[in-house]
């Protein structure tokens, strides 16, 4: 009792800090850390989902197999094409949309809600809606034919390699652009108005204000959005799954997560699927670290 009484205020704060953090740490340990460790352990075994025999330890053979497998490298390629094709436009356009919405005096809330609404839909529902749109007789072909003045042209949204990749990117872009726009809006709102006013007084026009005041001060939000959107893209699954179930060719959109699912559920090969999960985890970890490194290279901005 005396010891507690004698503790400094910082110590007391730290104790309460631990008290509040422990539930989330426990949650992370049970639902994230343990599955990661378990997946790594499983990846070292030849293990089939239905096999009642004890799994056979094979060391890193699953990793060795994957690194030599053209299928796995195709999945890596499909994942990177999708990620680059989606997260860069998402970061750029969500920032532009956020600036656009913040500059509006009217319909501010309406725009926020309108852009955010697709994010509320489940990925499966979103993909199902877009499947109807991409049907050869659907809205996508009709719109393109009207816009480009073509008659009865089938743009093969779900058929050719390039188009099916573009279609998955469009679905994801549509679904998540609003979500990241809201995050940017929060970031923009946290920049003190006095800084913009000071810049205007010093003669800065709108572009200079955006480039020299808004963008540098928005750097933490931009880093957050780019990391979150990149991770989200690397984990993409539902759109590709539903598209391939509906007749789209698998190879161009066989992203790593889809390959993991098929290896585990269709082929029952949980050992190899776990190895793929660990590699994906490594990729995500590496690119997150890389983004942090790159973002820190310019130093912190403060006015």
């Amino acid at each position, binding site marked *: 009792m005396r010891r507690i009484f004698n503790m400094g205020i910082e110590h007391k704060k730290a104790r309460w800090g631990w008290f509040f953090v422990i539930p989330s740490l426990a949650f992370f340990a049970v639902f994230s850390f343990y599955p990661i460790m378990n997946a790594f352990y499983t990846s070292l075994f030849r293990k089939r989902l239905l096999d009642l025999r004890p799994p056979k330890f094979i060391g890193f053979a699953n990793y060795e197999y994957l690194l030599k497998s053209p299928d796995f490298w195709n999945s890596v390629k499909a994942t990177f094409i999708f990620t680059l094709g989606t997260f860069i436009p998402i970061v750029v356009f969500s920032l532009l949309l956020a600036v656009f919405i913040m500059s509006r005096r009217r319909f501010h809330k309406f725009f926020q809600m309108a852009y955010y609404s697709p994010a509320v839909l489940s990925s499966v529902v979103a993909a199902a809606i877009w499947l109807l749109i991409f049907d050869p007789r659907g809205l996508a*072909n009709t719109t393109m034919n009207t816009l480009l003045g073509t008659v009865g042209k089938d743009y093969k949204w779900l058929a050719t390699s390039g188009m099916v990749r573009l279609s998955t990117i469009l679905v994801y872009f549509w679904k998540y652009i609003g979500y990241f726009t809201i995050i940017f809006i929060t970031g923009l709102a946290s920049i003190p108005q006095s800084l913009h006013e000071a810049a205007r007084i010093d003669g800065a026009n709108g572009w200079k204000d955006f480039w020299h005041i808004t963008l540098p001060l928005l750097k933490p939000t931009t880093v957050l959005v780019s990391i979150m959107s990149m991770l989200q893209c690397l984990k993409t699954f539902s759109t590709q799954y539903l598209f391939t179930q509906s007749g789209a*060719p698998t*190879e161009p959109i066989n992203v790593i997560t889809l390959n993991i699912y098929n290896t585990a559920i269709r082929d029952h090969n949980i050992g190899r699927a776990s190895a793929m999960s660990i590699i994906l985890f490594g990729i995500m970890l590496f690119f997150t670290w890389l983004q942090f490194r790159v973002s820190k290279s310019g130093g912190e901005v403060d006015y």
Partner: protein
Amino acid sequence: MNRRLVLVLLIVLLSLSLVFANTIELEFWTHEDPNRTPLEERFIEEFQEMYPNVVIKRVTQSSSKIQELILTAFAANQGPDIFNMSIEDEFAYIANGRVAPVDYEAAGYKDMEDLLASYLPGTLDPVDYEGEIYGLPLEITNWCILLNKKVFRDAGLDPEIDYPKTWEEMMEVSEKLTIREGEIITRRGFDFRYPYYLVAFMPLVEQMGGKLVSDDGKTAIINDEAWLNFLDYMAAWGPNGRNLGSPTYKNARSLFNMDNNDIGMCTTGLYQLARIKADNPEFYDSGEFMVVPFPQFEDAVNYVPAHYYGHYYMVNSQKPKENQEMAWKFVSYMLSHAEEYLEKVAIIIPTNELLESETFKNYPYSDVFISDLEKSTVVYFSESSAKIQSLIKEAVESVMLSGTSSRDALDTLRRKVQEVLDDQY
């Protein structure tokens, strides 16, 4: 007074615990089929009346979802007591010891010979493993061609005479039936059932003498010429060829029932008739559809109709013996209503009794289906059949949609299927 109350309470508690201790709860997981549900729910009620200590819980999901649920439940050693799925997916459960052999006595048979003698020869072969039978068939299904007579007449054809007998004719007839707006097809003459490559596409290869796997099961892709002809045919069928259909259009079988002038023919089983009756009774009563045999290639070296597949009821081997015994009793009770299954669901439980019955003989187009079934062989099944099917899908899609040459697609298919065969352990 208090003593009496305690005594009464003790007796009540004891009898309740005895009741619960003797209750057998059976989990029965199956795929959704709106026509089967009321029938099987009635069977459950009747069975529970016959065996008051049994509680049966029937769980349904879509046919693709139920496979995942059953697999993950078994992986966690929490599988249901009774389940069914197609034999291509079910075989892995037998091979891995996850299901129990039929309890002949509980199922109402003297022994295995008695059981085999009750069914159409060959229909229990897929579940005959190491001298035991591991499942009882809910349905044995083969596919023929369902044809909309109105669409034929609209294109100036006589359905009774002009229906396609060969795959070459199928292409020509489909061309006549197809309506397009530019490149976009608004009415297909015929289209394949794309996810089912082992059931409905392999016969095309086999008609020309090709095989998926050698007889010893060690070599993938036999007879390149047959495979190349097949892949060329599919490329010609697709949007980059004669543009007659594609996997990206809504599946033909679902559209057929609506009779909306958007599909002329589709591949399907007898069960489709019950679904037409349920979905569109007017179309069913109009008699404006007919069933014709599965086409053959003009230069076919083998007569191969669509492969038949079976949905077999299986019982979880990890459940207690009393559950297994009761599960087989219940399965047998359901299957003893084969004529009702035919009349209400249009599925064939291949018992000799049903096949010889007037109900079966008088059922519309049962003669066409049974004629093809007699010439048909069971679909390819192994522990890796789902993967192999997806590899054939990739090959067909690549020639139809991505413009890959048949030779390149075949070489890739061979490499991948061979890898699967080599990897089986």
